[in-house]
């Protein structure tokens, strides 16, 4: 159906969160990552011959964190992908808790779907581990501390292409 609108229909989280935190009295808005150039690496061989890995911003389940509703420290981790976890820790992340839920891990970390593609031959194989990157306020921690470590794990696991799923 054709519709006409005087505004964009998708939500701007940059605008929305700035106004929300300003209403809470935070005068310094968060400054989001912005790069004039984005890196691009083409696949070197067909995907049906590649090992594919997955990165999530969700955390490992832990009884203490579950009780507290938050993690003491948000840590970078690599975890066995088979069997796929049935729950991950997401309560302390920024997502729409009024509109949806994260009870189905495949809705944000689609390991089972990726395994199905591997079984069907669409991708060569799935990495034996998936990787968890904490959502950090500090962009420096993400790019200088976390990203190189994830790349190192990927190389250990023979990963040749990555799906990065952001909650």
């Amino acid at each position, binding site marked *: 159906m054709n519709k006409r609108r005087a505004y964009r229909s998708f939500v701007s989280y940059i605008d929305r969160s700035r106004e929300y935190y300003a209403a809470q*009295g935070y005068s310094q808005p968060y400054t989001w990552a912005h790069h004039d150039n984005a890196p691009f690496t083409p696949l070197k061989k067909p995907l049906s011959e590649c090992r594919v890995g997955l990165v999530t911003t969700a955390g490992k389940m832990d009884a203490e964190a579950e009780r507290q509703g938050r993690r003491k420290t948000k840590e970078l981790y690599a975890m066995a992908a088979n069997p796929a976890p049935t729950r991950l820790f997401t309560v302390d992340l920024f997502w729409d808790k009024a509109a949806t839920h994260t009870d189905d891990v495949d809705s944000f970390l*689609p390991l089972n779907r990726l395994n199905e593609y591997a079984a069907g031959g669409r991708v060569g194989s799935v990495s034996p581990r998936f990787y968890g990157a904490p959502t950090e306020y500090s962009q420096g921690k993400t790019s200088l501390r976390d990203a190189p470590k994830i790349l190192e794990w990927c190389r250990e696991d023979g990963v*040749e292409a990555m799906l990065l799923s*952001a909650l």
Partner: protein
Amino acid sequence: MPTVVLGSARDVVEECGVARFVFTDFPLGNPCGKPWDADMQRSIVGSALDLLERAWMARVTVQTPFRWGNDAWRDAFMRVDDSNREALAREGEERRRLQADAKKGGLS
């Protein structure tokens, strides 16, 4: 390393600038498809795999065809209006007070 991002915060990802981006216009939380909808999840992951193979340059965004079902979440998320402005200001004050107390107590 060839990468593709799956997400629902279009402005955040595009401002950052990534190699490939599969955008699904859903409330934040399920960037790979609705919970328990394996067909939709398979389709979205399939779009990501297609993009890994077919993108020819950086910053290619593909939007998947799925709709959440209603649009109420768009205005409701982090809404600021006259009905909650005072409550938000109080929440902010309270959080800063707790943080200041934690600092004084040597906690962080």
